[in-house]
Structures are given as structure tokens and as C-alpha cells.
């Protein structure tokens, strides 16, 4: 046997090596060189904190006592991991997007950032984990005792206690050094994780080495060992189906809910892809860890003297065969198992305690707000360090109290059943939007109470906490309330009994209260984000428009994140908003982002509380909630709004373009009008001036000539007057200044009047009328209307180019009004000109021949518009055709 001092030296060397590894890893990570530190292999190995000293030593003891049952502790996690696509993936995604720092943070954050829940979960976690830490201390101490001077002579209790204290203190120092170096838990503890990965390799190699030595060195090969198993006292040891199923379930729950597992699985996760590797690599690790357990147990039972502690076979078997090196390796393996578990558990618990108990209390005490002076980071870190010390101290005290005598497996299972109480709140939280805070608190409290009553307190033994009478006969002699036989179910195994009742009460309370209660807006917001984490990639709005001062927020963020990081965060946010400097606008998005960053350091509930202290209210408005509550509807609404908006924009643009075109056109028209009008005025003026000059010169001019010239001057001035009259008429009409003299008139009279007025012009134009159809009485301005008719008739006279010109006047009564068509038998108006004939000064043929200024139809159009009707060119009638329409309101049947 190797001397005890040498063993201690090796142990210290090993610890120094771990320190070195952790230190180097931290340094590499800080320098950004952490390539292999972030590999799936490290992640998978770090998950091995599941395999504690309970696995390393205890599994063999468990197998020696209960046969195959030990394997259920590894089957449950295997199922959870190969089923990673169901829950683990979602859990890790939620952990990353919400910057979750612990399982208490996850549950508190899911249920509306409720700190009450955070406290409940933290307390249960501490109570559930303390025995487990005690177990690790015990196993390390026992393994030291094996090597103690004197060999077979057991250590005195005092020695055991002092070594347990030393181990606890050493672990506290290591954890504080590497676990509280940085505050942001999401920056991850590279040093610790790497050291744990090294320990994972050591314990696997050690157990495999012992196993190989036992099978091939002692057992004589695989077949021989299998034969030994068949003939051993373990062979045929029956399986209890209840315990088998129950323990598989319990271990599956524990892998999700153990605080230390949550820490390495979710919080320390670097990349979701690592989970894909771990999904098979971690079950493989578990399988290798349990592969040689039965052979070691069987060989140990056969080889070791009766009464030897089967929990220590891993250590004592090699020692008994003089394999000092192997025994030392096994010792280091066990030491690694225990220390890695304690370190991670202490980090996880201290994070929970500082974020959910110390920080809220601190915030309450300094009610003036987080902006007051003092570095919050220091306080958080100090809280964590004290918590780590406290957790280890609790473990040590439990070890002292429980006397360190129980079988290892029992404590482990009690702890598992305790933390399994998180399962309904956890799974319900990520899978069911209807789960509420009240439900979660009820379920957790009920489950925890039943667990404590039926399993935890009785585990201290008769007379420990519960008296023998209480255990045997129930409180006040009420038999059906006996801790280990609720409702008379004494036939069950105590563990299965406790599990069924605690989980039953938990689930029942959780579901019933969830269904009956109504969640507050924050809960519903968080529920949507957690349950639909794969859909809601964008963070939901937790803040309505803030009224906070950016400077106050920066002040607070600096205290928690440190000046550099906080300033960087604010600067980036400002840059994203297109601003310069360090103070972004306080938008809801920014508040959300800031809160999430803070949550990575102090947990969601505390971060929320701190931000709301400054912003002044922690409200989610109903509008915000409605927006998030139905993302699909919102997206659809949004996109349809966008569509409508863009359509509206397009419409406006089109209208603008049209208006612009019209304006341009009008301006061109105005120019054309001006030049036209000056031209039209100038032509008669020129001839008037010329002939008046001739007349003035006057000599040698005959009276005939003089009369002729005067006549021309007279005609030209008449033309000028007519033109000016028309222009005046048009401008009066266009400006709407005309006063209409509406009266009842008979249409035939109007047509008669028009024909009579144009009789001098008609010449050879034959008029065709249908007097029967014309018998319509109208309520309109007869003078104006006949002006239109006169214009049309004279046009027909002027422009109809048929050899026997003919004008047909048709009157048609329609549903909407009366239409009067003037159709001649000429060649009509070419299609391209039809659009411009109603414009001013538009004349299709030579204007001399027409003798007008081209204002007639323009005036007609204006008159008809005033009368509420219209005049249009009617194509396809075999000649020029115009339709004058009058609305029904002004047309009445005669």
C-alpha cells in the first residue's frame, strides 16, 4: 500500500494540475483563443458532473445490494438525451435567448419574472442539494480513510471530520477562484468547465481501468466473469418493477432539474449544435461508466472479506491485489467525481442564492434605487462568494449531523426526488402556455412539502427529526397520515411511495391552480416567448414607451456590467438608432435589450426589478400583450397594413403624377391660349389698321372703294367683337360666375328657336326631326340650352361637306335623362381629333372658311357642365354627331 503522505501529495499535485488547467483555459478564453474550449467534446465531458462519487463508488455498492437496479439511474438520462429533439433543444434555446442563469431563473422568468418563485425554487434546490454535497464529502473522506495509516483500522471520527472540513474548504476556495471570476454567467466559466472535462476523463479512465483489471486481471476474461455473475449471490436478484420504472423516471427528471445539470447543460452551453453531439456521446459516457459495475460488485463480493463496505470496492479491490497505481488512479477518479459535482453545484446554487435572495433584499434595503452609489457588481460577486462558502458549510454540517453512516445511494435518490419537484413547473412552463405562476407556486410547495414529509425527514432515521411513534402510527395516531404509508399505502417501497405522492400532489396542484387562475400580462408575455421559442425569434416587448433617463440607466448598467461593457452596449444601441454618443433613445426595444443583458448577470427577476425601479413601472400594456399574444395574427395584420399602405402610396403617387401632368399640360395650354388669342385679335386688327390707313390717306379714292374698305373694317370689328364676346362668355362660364335662369321649357320650342336663329346660315342644309319624340319638357335655362343647339346647327352648316347636307335631330329619353343627338351626313371628325374638338381655339379646317375663333364647342361644353349635363362627340354615326345629355332631374315628361 502506498503511504498516506504520498497519496496526499499526489492529491495536492492533482489539484494543482486542475488549477493550472482552469487558469490556462480562462486565459485562453480571455485572449479569444478558446477554439477547442468550445468544442462539443468539452461540452459532453462537462455533462459528466451527473456522475458523482455516488456513481463512482456508490453504483458498485448499489449493485451489490440491489442487483441490476443501479442501472436505472443512467437509463433515464439516456432516454432524455436521445430524445433531445423533444425537450433539451427547446430548453437550451430558451436558455440562450432569454439569457437564463439558473433553473430558478428559468422558472421565475417563465412565470412573469416572479421573484417569489425564484426564492421557492432556490430554497428547494438548496435543501435538495445539501445532502448530495454531504454525500460527496463523505465519499472523499471515506476514500482517504482507506489509505489511512493503520490500514484496516478505521479512522477516528475526529479525523474523518477534519478531513471533510479540509476538503470542503479546499473546494470552496477553488470554486470561488474560478466560479466567481466574472459576473455574467452567460460569459460561461471556461476555466471550471475545462477542469471538469479533465476530471471527467480521469474518472472514466479510472473506472474503466479498474473494470478491465477486475474482468481480465481477476475474473479471467469476459466469459469467465459472466459465469461468475451467473453463480454469484447477485444472480437472480429480482427486479422490483415499481422501483425500476420509478427510478428511471426519477433519473430522467433529475437530469433536467438538478441545478448542477442545468448549469452545465443550459447555462454553459456554447452552441446548440453541441447538444446534437452530446445526444449520443453522453449516453455513451454513461454506458461506459456502468459497464463494469456488476462485474466489480460480483468479484468484490466474492473476493473481499464479508462485512467490507461494497461502496468502496472500486478502491479496495485493486488495493487487496497490490495494485497501488491502479488504486491511486481509482482514488483520483473518485476524488474527481466528488469535486466536480461540488464545484458545479456550488456555482449553480450560489448564482441562485445571490440572484434571487441577496439581490432582491439588497434592492429592498437600498430603496432609493440601483442608481445610488456603490458598485453592484462587487456586491453580487461578494454575495456569490459568501453563498458558495455557505453551501459548502451546509453540506459539511449535514454530513456531521447525518453521521456519515448511510449508504450512498439512499441520499442520492432522496435528493433526486427533491429536485424532481421542479419538473412539472419546468416542462409545463416550456410546453404549456396555460401554466401560471400561482399554479407553479402551488405545485412546487405541495410537492416539496409531501417530499419532505414522506422521504426527506424520515431519512434522518427514527428519532432523528420524526419520532418513532410518528413514523409507525402517524401524527396524533392518524394512521392514514403515516409518512411512509399515506392513505394506507404501506405496501409500496418508501421511495416510490414518496415519489408517487409528491409528484401527484405537485402535478395536481400545478394543473388545477393553473386552470383556475388567470395570469397577469407579464406571465402571458413570457409564456408566449418560452413556449413558442422556435417561432418567436424576435424578442417580445416587455416595456411600453419608457420615460427613463438614459443617463440613469447607463449609471446602473455600469454598476452591474462594468463600465466598459455597459458603455459599449449603450454605444452600440445608440449607433443602431443612428445616433452618436453613449445615450440612445429609451425605446421599448432598448429597454428589452438592456434588461436581457442585465439578466445574464443577476437573473431575470432582479434585472426586471432594477430596470423598473428606474423606468418607474414594470407594466406591460395590454396592447403590447395583444401584439405578442397572437404573433400570427399580428404578422398578418402587419403585412396587410403594409400592403394597404403601399397601395395607398402607389395611388397617391399616381394621383400626384397625374396632377403634375395636368399642371404641365395646363401651363402649355395657357401659353398656347395666350399666343392663340393674341393671334386671333391681331388678325382683324391688322386688317382694320391697314384699311383705315388707306382711308386716311383718302385721295383719289372712289366712293365704291371707300364703301368697300369701310365694310371690311366693319366686318373685321364685328368679328373682333364676336371674339371678345365669346372669350368673355367662356371666362364667365369657366369661373362659374354665370347665373342660370332655370324655368320649365318645351324642348321642341328650343329646337325651333335654334333653327330660326340659324335660318340665315342653313343654306342647303336639310333638317330632319321627329316631332313625336321631341315632346319633352325640361326644367333648365332655355336660353343657354338653345345657345348650344344654335352652335351645333351652325357647325353642321359650316362643316358638313356632303353634296346634299342633312342634319338629323334625334331626341331619346333614357332612364337617367334626355339625350339630344345632332347627326349630319358629312365625313365626320377623324378619330385622332375627336379628343380636342372641345378645346379652345381648336379648329380642324381652315379658319377663314369657318369664320370663327374655335371657341364654340368649348363654350358648349362649359354651358352643358353648368346645366348639369354633358356634350360629347358620338362616333360611328355616319357623320359628325354630337350628343347633348340632360339629367333626369331637369327633364320631365311632357
Amino acid at each position, binding site marked *: 500500500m502506498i503511504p498516506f503522505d504520498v497519496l496526499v501529495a499526489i492529491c495536492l499535485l492533482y489539484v494543482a494540475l486542475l488549477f493550472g488547467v482552469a487558469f490556462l483555459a480562462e486565459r485562453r478564453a480571455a485572449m479569444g483563443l478558446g477554439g477547442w474550449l468550445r468544442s462539443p467534446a468539452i461540452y459532453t465531458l462537462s455533462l459528466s458532473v451527473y456522475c458523482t462519487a455516488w456513481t463512482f463508488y456508490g453504483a458498485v455498492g448499489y449493485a451489490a445490494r440491489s442487483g441490476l437496479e443501479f442501472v436505472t439511474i443512467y437509463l433515464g438520462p439516456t432516454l432524455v*438525451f*436521445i430524445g433531445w429533439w423533444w425537450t433539451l433543444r427547446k430548453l437550451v434555446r430558451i436558455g440562450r435567448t432569454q439569457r437564463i442563469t439558473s433553473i430558478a431563473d428559468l422558472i421565475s422568468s417563465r412565470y412573469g419574472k416572479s421573484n417569489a418563485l425564484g426564492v421557492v425554487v432556490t430554497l428547494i434546490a438548496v435543501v435538495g442539494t445539501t445532502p448530495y454535497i454531504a454525500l460527496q464529502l463523505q465519499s472523499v473522506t471515506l476514500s482517504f480513510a482507506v489509505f489511512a495509516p493503520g490500514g484496516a483500522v478505521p479512522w477516528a471520527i475526529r479525523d474523518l471530520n477534519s478531513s471533510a472540513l479540509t476538503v470542503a474548504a479546499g473546494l470552496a476556495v477553488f470554486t470561488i477562484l474560478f466560479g466567481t471570476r466574472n459576473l455574467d454567467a452567460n460569459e460561461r466559466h471556461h476555466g471550471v468547465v475545462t477542469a471538469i472535462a479533465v476530471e471527467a476523463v480521469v474518472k472514466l479512465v479510472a473506472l474503466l481501468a479498474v473494470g478491465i483489471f477486475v474482468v481480465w486481471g481477476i475474473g479471467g476474461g469476459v466469459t469467465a466473469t459472466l459465469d461468475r455473475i451467473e453463480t454469484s449471490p447477485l444472480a437472480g436478484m429480482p427486479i422490483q418493477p415499481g422501483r425500476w420504472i420509478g427510478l428511471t423516471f426519477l433519473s430522467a427528471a433529475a437530469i433536467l432539474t438538478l441545478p448542477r445539470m442545468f448549469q452545465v447543460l443550459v447555462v454553459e452551453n456554447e452552441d446548440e449544435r453541441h447538444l446534437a453531439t452530446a445526444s449520443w456521446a453522453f449516453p455513451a459516457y454513461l454506458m461506459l461508466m456502468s459497464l463494469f459495475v456488476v462485474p466489480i460488485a460480483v468479484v468484490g463480493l466474492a473476493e473481499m472479506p464479508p462485512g467490507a463496505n461494497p461502496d468502496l470496492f472500486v478502491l479496495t479491490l485493486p488495493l487487496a491485489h497490490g495494485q497501488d497505481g491502479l488504486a491511486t488512479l481509482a482514488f483520483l477518479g473518485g476524488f474527481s467525481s466528488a469535486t466536480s459535482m461540488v464545484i458545479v453545484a456550488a456555482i449553480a446554487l450560489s448564482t441562485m442564492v445571490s440572484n434571487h435572495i441577496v439581490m432582491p433584499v439588497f434592492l429592498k434595503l437600498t430603496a432609493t434605487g440601483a442608481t445610488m452609489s456603490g458598485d453592484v457588481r462587487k456586491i453580487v460577486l461578494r454575495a456569490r462568494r459568501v453563498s458558495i462558502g455557505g453551501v459548502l458549510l451546509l453540506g459539511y454540517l449535514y454530513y456531521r449531523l447525518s453521521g456519515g453512516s448511510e449508504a450512498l445511494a439512499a441520499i442520492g435518490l432522496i435528493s433526486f426526488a427533491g429536485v424532481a419537484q421542479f419538473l412539472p413547473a419546468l416542462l409545463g412552463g416550456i410546453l404549456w402556455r396555460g401554466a401560471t405562476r400561482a399554479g407553479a407556486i402551488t405545485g412546487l410547495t405541495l410537492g416539496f412539502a409531501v417530499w419532505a414529509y414522506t422521504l426527506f425527514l424520515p431519512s434522518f432515521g427514527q428519532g432523528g427529526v420524526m419520532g418513532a411513534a410518528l413514523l409507525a402510527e402517524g401524527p396524533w395516531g392518524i394512521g392514514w397520515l403515516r409518512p411512509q404509508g399515506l392513505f394506507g399505502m404501506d405496501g409500496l417501497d418508501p421511495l416510490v411511495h414518496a415519489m408517487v405522492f409528491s409528484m401527484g400532489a405537485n402535478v395536481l396542484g400545478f394543473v388545477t391552480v393553473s386552470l383556475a387562475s388567470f395570469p397577469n400580462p407579464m406571465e402571458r408575455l413570457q409564456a408566449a416567448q418560452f413556449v413558442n421559442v422556435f417561432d418567436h425569434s424576435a424578442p417580445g416587448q416587455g416595456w411600453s414607451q419608457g420615460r427613463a433617463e438614459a443617463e440613469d440607466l447607463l449609471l446602473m448598467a455600469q454598476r452591474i456590467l462594468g463600465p466598459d461593457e455597459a458603455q459599449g452596449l449603450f454605444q452600440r444601441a445608440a449607433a443602431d438608432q443612428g445616433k452618436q454618443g453613449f445615450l440612445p433613445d429609451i425605446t421599448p426595444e432598448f429597454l428589452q435589450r438592456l434588461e436581457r443583458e442585465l439578466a445574464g448577470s443577476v437573473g431575470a427577476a432582479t434585472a426586471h426589478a432594477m430596470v423598473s425601479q428606474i423606468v418607474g413601472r414594470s407594466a406591460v400594456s395590454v396592447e403590447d400583450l395583444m401584439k405578442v399574444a397572437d404573433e400570427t395574427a399580428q404578422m398578418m395584420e402587419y403585412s396587410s397594413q403594409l400592403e394597404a399602405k403601399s397601395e395607398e402610396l402607389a395611388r397617391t403617387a399616381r394621383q400626384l403624377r397625374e396632377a403634375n401632368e395636368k399642371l404641365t399640360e395646363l401651363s402649355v395650354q395657357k401659353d398656347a391660349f395666350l399666343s392663340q388669342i393674341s393671334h386671333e385679335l391681331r388678325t382683324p386688327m391688322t386688317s382694320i389698321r391697314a384699311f383705315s390707313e388707306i382711308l386716311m390717306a383718302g385721295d383719289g379714292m372712289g366712293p365704291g372703294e371707300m364703301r368697300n374698305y369701310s365694310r371690311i373694317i366693319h366686318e373685321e370689328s364685328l368679328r373682333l367683337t364676336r371674339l371678345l364676346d365669346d372669350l368673355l362668355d367662356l371666362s364667365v362660364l369657366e369661373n362659374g360666375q354665370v347665373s342660370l335662369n332655370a324655368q320649365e321649357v318645351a324642348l321642341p320650342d328650343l329646337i325651333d328657336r335654334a333653327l330660326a336663329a340659324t335660318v340665315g346660315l342653313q343654306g342647303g342644309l336639310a333638317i330632319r326631326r321627329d316631332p313625336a319624340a321631341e315632346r319633352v319638357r325640361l326644367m333648365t335655362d332655355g336660353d343657354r340650352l338653345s345657345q348650344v343647339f344654335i352652335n351645333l346647327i351652325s357647325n353642321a352648316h359650316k362643316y358638313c361637306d356632303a353634296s346634299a347636307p342633312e342634319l338629323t335631330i334625334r331626341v331619346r329619353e333614357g332612364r337617367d335623362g334626355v339625350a339630344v343627338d345632332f347627326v349630319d351626313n358629312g365625313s365626320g371628325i377623324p378619330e385622332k381629333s375627336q379628343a380636342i374638338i372641345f378645346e379652345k381655339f381648336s379648329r380642324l379646317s381652315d379658319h377663314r372658311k369657318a369664320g370663327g375663333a374655335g371657341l364654340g364647342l368649348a363654350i358648349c361644353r362649359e354651358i352643358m357642365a353648368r346645366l348639369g349635363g354633358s356634350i360629347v362627340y358620338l362616333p360611328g354615326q355616319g357623320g359628325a354627331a354630337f350628343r347633348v345629355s340632360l339629367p333626369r332631374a331637369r327633364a320631365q315628361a311632357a
Partner: protein
Amino acid sequence: MGRAPPFLAREGYRRRRLADMARLLPLVGLALFLMPALDARDGLSAPMLIYLFGAWAGLITVSAILARRLCRSGAMDDSDGPQAEGP
């Protein structure tokens, strides 16, 4: 969730079926692991050990193949973070 088309291209279809297999695997595992409880009377024996570890190893192998194919098919692509290959 966006309005996904009702039918997927071959690649997308494969990916969905791979995910289905990943979901189904733990149920298969559960059935395999509960077998010993059905045969409780016989208890621990060498064949039972061989069966249990054989089933375990088989599950791990299938899970490893599935995980690799899921990663390669891009089913994890909705996750951020750097690319990483298994060891």
C-alpha cells in the same frame, strides 16, 4: 409561424422525417429499457446484462447516426453560433 407550403421539396421532407425519427427514438428506448421490469422474476443474469447493454449500445449508435444526419441536413440551421463538428 409563417404560412409554410403544405408540401415540401424532397430535401425538406427528408429533414422532417429525420426529426420524426429523432422524436420516436426515446419511445423505442423506453420500450427496450422497460423490458427487464416485465421479466422481473428472473432478475439479474448474464443474458439480461448482455441484452441491456446491447440495447443501450444500439440506441446510442442510432442516435449518433441521426444526430449527424440532422446536423448535416441543416435542421439545426435555425440556430445561431459557429459551425461545429462532432468529435
